[in-house]
């Protein structure tokens, strides 16, 4: 923790004003109640307050290294009684002897000094307490703010870690099967092989670079999904049919990056798993009432009644992520009807700072 006054220009000015005010008060006091000469009152007041001001800066260290939380209260009182006595003694003695040296003061001052000694000690103690109080408040405020930021940092890093854990990792099956498909394409369609390498690279780049929980524009996310689907279509040929039904007013909608791919992967996996022939995957997106709604559905074997919902660890992760990001648990809906498995994701379009990203 830095010195509160030494490092702050505004506080330095205030500090100066504070001591000037005290000096003025002391001067007036002497002049008024003890009928001293104005010259003596001014000299006495400024010399004393100057000493206090200088020693006062040093008192910071008495506070800084005697924090309330880390010390026994008895020790603190003793420490400050000693510091206060030393400070007072130094100021009074130094002030007394310095003013003795000034030619027009002389004996008048001597008498006044001892008459006012009681008040001087009382004022000194009061000033000491005031300074200490100020410093302690400053330390307390600083610690408090530090704690708040530390807590916020901790919360933030815990959330990021959680999100990263939930973030979908690249499925090794997908990666190696795609590489195998590329290997096959080099045999009779090198152009297509090159095309697929580029698409796979783009997809991997996107998956690696994105930070969990980062927001993206929907069209960018969708573009990446199309690349993913293109790659899968090479692998599965005409067995895999993809229907896209994207409403044009979703251009500016925002969503957490990489949240659609696991859902789509899940749909493909289960759609293909039980179909010997063709299987259809449908992606729908629409925007209304401040929500981007995305629905992904796949055919699945009707005789297997509730299987898919129970198996989807991937889908559970998505629900968790949505909860962490939006603080709501009603944004992922999983349905199972008429031989279709349907996952609906709703993304609120109001961001945290209150801006609306939704285009009407």
């Amino acid at each position: 923790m830095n010195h509160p006054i030494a490092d702050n220009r505004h506080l330095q000015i205030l500090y100066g004003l504070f001591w000037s005010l005290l000096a003025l008060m002391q001067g007036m006091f002497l002049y008024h109640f003890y009928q001293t000469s104005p010259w003596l009152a001014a000299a006495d007041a400024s010399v004393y307050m100057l000493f206090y001001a200088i020693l006062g800066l040093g008192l910071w260290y008495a506070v800084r290294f005697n924090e309330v939380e880390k010390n026994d209260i008895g020790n603190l009182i003793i420490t400050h009684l000693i510091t206060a006595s030393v400070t007072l003694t130094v100021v009074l003695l130094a002030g007394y002897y310095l003013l003795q040296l000034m030619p027009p003061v002389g004996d008048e001052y001597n008498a006044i000094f001892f008459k006012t000694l009681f008040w001087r000690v009382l004022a000194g103690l009061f000033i000491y307490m005031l300074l200490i109080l100020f410093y302690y408040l400053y330390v307390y405020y600083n610690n408090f703010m530090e704690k708040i930021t530390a807590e916020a940092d901790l919360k933030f890093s815990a959330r990021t870690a959680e999100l990263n854990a939930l973030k979908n990792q690249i499925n090794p099956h997908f990666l190696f099967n795609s590489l195998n498909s590329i290997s096959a394409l080099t045999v009779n369609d090198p152009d297509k092989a090159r095309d697929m390498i580029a698409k796979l690279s783009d997809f991997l780049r996107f998956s690696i670079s994105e930070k969990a929980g980062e927001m993206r524009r929907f069209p960018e996310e969708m573009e990446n999904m199309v690349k993913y689907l293109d790659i899968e279509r090479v692998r599965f040929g005409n067995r895999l049919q993809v229907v896209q039904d994207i409403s044009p007013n979703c251009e500016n909608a925002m969503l957490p990056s990489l949240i659609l791919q696991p859902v789509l992967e899940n749909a493909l996996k289960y759609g293909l798993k039980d179909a010997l022939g063709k299987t259809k995957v449908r992606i729908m997106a629409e925007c209304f009432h401040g929500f981007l709604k995305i629905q992904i559905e796949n055919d699945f074997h009707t005789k297997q009644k509730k299987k898919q919902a129970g198996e989807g660890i991937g889908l559970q992760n998505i629900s968790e992520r949505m909860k962490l990001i939006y603080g709501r648990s009603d944004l992922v809906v999983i349905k199972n009807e008429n031989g279709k498995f349907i996952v609906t994701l709703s993304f609120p379009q109001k961001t945290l700072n209150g801006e609306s990203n939704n285009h009407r």
Partner: protein
Amino acid sequence: MVRAIIIDDEPPARLLLRKYLEGLEDVQIVDECENGFEGVKAINELKPELVFLDIEMPRLNGFEMLELLDELPMVIFITAYDQYAVKAFERHAVDYLLKPFTKERLREAVDRAKTMAGKPDGARGVKKLVKEQQDKQDIIERIAIKTGTKIRIIYTEEIHYIEAQDDYVMIYTDDGKYLKQKTMKYFETHLPASSFVRIHRSYIARIDFIDQIELYEKDAYIVKLRNGQTLPVSKSGYLRLRDALRF
């Protein structure tokens, strides 16, 4: 010359393997299949010496398919990424290829398969592996049954009940009954416990297919099924039913 069949559900994967094998003079591809059903049929009809088998396939995976064969050929397994399967392959000294693979790696696998094919129990490793995969699977969700030339996949939700018949069990479903060479013990431990109860030494019933449980005579119960049939319930069977239904 080794006669071989390729079984893989991804067209590019089949293409690549075919191209590689065309370069090897000692392997002749006699058929290509895109799922396990076609695979069983082709293997039984063409009796190849060697099968290139993808593990991940729709409905009937590679291991389930092998289980349906009467006679096992030499198998070279192919997978993209399956650490458990790879460990099992190593354990049983069964050959496998990891996608994507090189032509040299394929050459080695074929050479090893050829030397093994000459031996009387060359396919023993594969047999053990298939057995192990079956036992390892905790809860089954489907049962593959071969009837004549057809293969029927029964999902556990379709089962009415299972009846013991010596070394076999008879599985009763919506559309008839199917004989399977497996023990009652196997089904008792491998069918989902939340849906099936062993009500009798000779019967396992699907809970959702039970209509009523009736007192038949003192301390003896029977269950009435949704299709009107009745099955006997043993004393311990009754206790298991009570546990499952919490009454």
